C-alpha cells in the first residue's frame, strides 16, 4: 500500500457511516488507502503502532485523520487533545466529521487544532462533495503542499 502514499485514518464507530464514507471516497477516486479505527483507544493504538497495528510497514502513520467526536471508550475531542500533545503526531491535519452541531463542540475542536469541522450530511451527494475536498487535501499533502482550507467547513465567527 505504500506505493499509494500514506493512508487516511478514519476514526468512526458507526458501520453505516463507515460504509457511506468509504463509498463516497471511492466515488471521488481517492488514491489513498483508508484505515479505520473503531474508537479513540484503537486510534491511539494505531498512531502509536501498538497491539494489532505494531507493523508500521502495514500500518504507516496517516497523512490525514478524519475524526468522529462521539466515540466509545475515548471521545474524539480527547483523542484530538492527545494527538496535539504528541510532537511527532501534532502536524497530522485532523478533519472533524460528526453529527454534532453543538457550538461548544465546534469551538473545542478548533481550539484543539482541527483544520475543519463538518456536520455529517444526510445525503450522499453532500458526502461526495466533502470526500472530493478530502481527496484534494490528501493530494496536496502528498505533494508536500500544506492542506488548503477545506471548503464548507463550519467556522465560529471570530473564533
Amino acid at each position, binding site marked *: 500500500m505504500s506505493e499509494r502514499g500514506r493512508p487516511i485514518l478514519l476514526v468512526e464507530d*458507526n458501520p*453505516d*457511516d463507515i*460504509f*457511506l464514507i468509504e*463509498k463516497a471516497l471511492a466515488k471521488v477516486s481517492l488514491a489513498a488507502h483508508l484505515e479505520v479505527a473503531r474508537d479513540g483507544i484503537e486510534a491511539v493504538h494505531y498512531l502509536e503502532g501498538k497491539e494489532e497495528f505494531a507493523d508500521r510497514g502495514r500500518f504507516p502513520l496517516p497523512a490525514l485523520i478524519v475524526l468522529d467526536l*462521539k466515540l466509545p471508550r475515548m471521545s474524539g475531542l480527547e483523542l484530538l487533545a492527545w494527538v496535539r500533545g504528541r510532537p511527532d503526531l501534532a502536524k497530522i491535519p485532523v478533519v472533524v466529521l460528526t*453529527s*454534532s*452541531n*453543538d*457550538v461548544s463542540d465546534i469551538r473545542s475542536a478548533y481550539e484543539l487544532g482541527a483544520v475543519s469541522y463538518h456536520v*455529517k*450530511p*444526510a*445525503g*450522499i*451527494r453532500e*458526502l461526495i462533495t466533502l470526500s472530493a475536498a478530502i481527496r484534494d487535501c490528501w493530494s496536496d499533502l502528498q505533494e508536500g503542499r500544506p492542506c488548503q482550507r477545506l471548503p464548507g467547513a463550519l467556522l*465560529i*465567527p*471570530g473564533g
Partner: protein
Amino acid sequence: MGSKRSTIFAWLSLNTPPAARPWRLRYGVALAGVLIGFLGRTALTSSIGPTALPFIFFFPSITVVAWYGGFKPAVLSIILAGLTAVWFFIEPLQTFKVRIPEIWGLLAFSLSCFLIVGAIEMMHRARAGLTRSRDLLSTTLASIGDGVIVTDEQGRVTFLNPEAEHLTRWKSIEARGHDLPKVFRIINEETRQPAENPVEKVLRFGKVVGLANHTLLIANDGTEIPIDDCAAPIHDPGGSRFGVVLVFRDSSEQRKAQEARNRLATIVDSSEDAIISKNLEGKILTWNASAERMFGYSADEIIGKPVTTLIPPELHQQEEEIRQRLCRGQASECLETMRLTKDGRRITVSVSVSPLKDNEGHVIGASTILRDVSDAVAARQALAGGREELEREVDERTTKLKEILREMEAFTYTVAHDLRSPLRAIAGCSELLIEEHGAELSTGSAPEYLRKISDGARKMDELIRDLLEYSHLARTDLKLDPVPLEGAVTEALAQQERLIKDRNAQVTVDRPLPVVQAHGPTLTRVLANLVSNAVKFVSPGKTPVVRVRSEPRKGRVRLWVEDNGIGIEAAYLERIFRVFERLNRQEEYPGTGIGLAIVRRAVERMGGRSGVESTPGQGSRFWIDLHEVSHP
C-alpha cells in the same frame, strides 16, 4: 335722680337698720330730738311753771332717736337731754347744780331712757339677725342647682327659687297662691298618666317622700323635662306642719350619662375580649364576662387580687415594665404574651394596656384588653410548618427536575447522534441505489419510490436538527457580547449562498449596520433563517428581492428583513412564530415549520423581540429588536 330719691326714702324708712343711715343724719336727729323736747317743755312753762315735769318731754324724742339713729346717738341725746333739763328746768335754774330730791328724778329719767334705748337696740339686732338669715336663705336657694318650691299647709305655692322658675317656666310671683299640681305638673313617663302630687303624699304621711322613677315635669310652655325629686314637710317649732318644701332637679344629663354608662357596660360585658381594669398598685378593679370565660375566675373571686395572679412568674418583670410605661402615661399595644388561667393552663394572648386618668389627667390605673390568640398562634405555627414543608418539597422537586433535565440533555444528545445515523444510511443508500443501479431500476415507479425514501430521510434529518436546536435554545444560557451586525449578516448570507443562487434572488444590505448585544452564532442562525424564509416564500416564477436594513429605536436596533414574497394574512401573523405552524403546503414551500419559532426564542434569549408586518401578495417585513452597543 330716681336713685337719690329712693336713697332718701331708704333713710326715712323705719325698716332700715340705723347703721345703714349716714352718721351725720343720725347725730343730727339726736340733737334735733333734744331740741324738740326742750322747745316742747319751754312752751308749757307759762302754764305749769318753770320747774315742773323737767324730763317727761324728752322721752318721745329719745325713743325716736333710738329707733332712727341707733344706740350711740340715743345715748348722746340722753346725756344732752339730762344736761338741758338740769340747766333749764331744775332749781337752781341756769346751773348744773342738782339738789338731792332732783337727783332721784334724774337717775329715774336716765334709767328709763336706757331701758327704752336698750329695748329698741335689741329689736334692731333681732331684726338684723332675721334679715341676715333671710338673705342667707334666699341666696342659698338662688344659688343651688336644684329647683325648690315651697307650699303652705294647704298645698298652695308660696315660693319658687330661680332654678324652679327656670324648670317650670313659672315666675315665683305669678305662681304664688296656685295649687301645686298647676305649677308643678308631673306625669309618669311610661304611662303618661298624671303622677301623684308629692305634696299630698307628704301631707298624708307627714314625712319625706321621693318621686317614682321616670317622672316627667311638664313646664308651663309644654316642655317635658325628666326630673328627680323629693318633698319634705316643714314643721314649726311647736311641731305642727305649716308647709311642704319640694326639691327637684333636671335629670336629663344624669340620665344621658347613665345611659352612656349602661351602653359602655353592655359593650364591655358583651365583648369577646377580656376587659380588666386595675389600679396603679396592680389590684384588679373590674372584670368582664369574657375575662371570666378566658381565665375561669369569677368577678367576686378575682376583684381586689393582684393582676400578677394571671401572669406566669417568669413574666412578672415584663408586667413591671408595662406598669412603668403606664405611670408615664404610655399605652402598651398588642403585646403578644402568656397568661395563666385559674386551672394553671397557659394561654397566648394579645394584650393592650391603656392608662386610666382622673379628671385632672393623673394616671390612676389602667384598662387592659386581652385577646386569646392561642388558636391564631397555632394556625401561624402550622402555616410556618407548612411553609417549611413546602420549601422542602420545592427543593426536592427542583432536584428531581434538574435530574430530569440532565436526562433530557443526555436523551437529546443520543437523539442527535443515534437517531440521525440510520437516517443517513437510508438517505445515503437510497441515493447510491439510484446512482449505481439507476438503469436496472428505471422501470415503473421504482425511481419515484427511491426518491421518496431519500427525500423523507432528508426531511426527517432536517426536522430533528431544528427540533434539537429549538430545545437547545431553551436550556442553554447564551453569553451575550457586542456583535457587529455587519459580520453576522455577511455570515448568514454566506450560509444561504446556495439557496440564494438557486433562486436567483437579489439580496441588498443597507450598510453600515450597528453593533448589538447578542450571541454571535445564534444571531447568525437567526439571520440565516430569516433570509432563507425571505427567499423561499415567493410565488413561483417571481424573482425574490430581499432587503436587509436597520433603524435605531431608543437604545435598541431594529433589523428588518424585507421580501416581495407571498405575504402573511393578518390572522396568522403571530401563529407563524409557534412550533410546527405552517401556512403553506409542504410541496410548494418546504421547511420544518420550526425556523420562526427558533428565531423568536433565540431573540428572546438575547434580550430582544421579534415580529412581522405583512401585506398578503406583496411581501413580508420581519424584524428583530436587539440592544444596541453604543460606540465610544
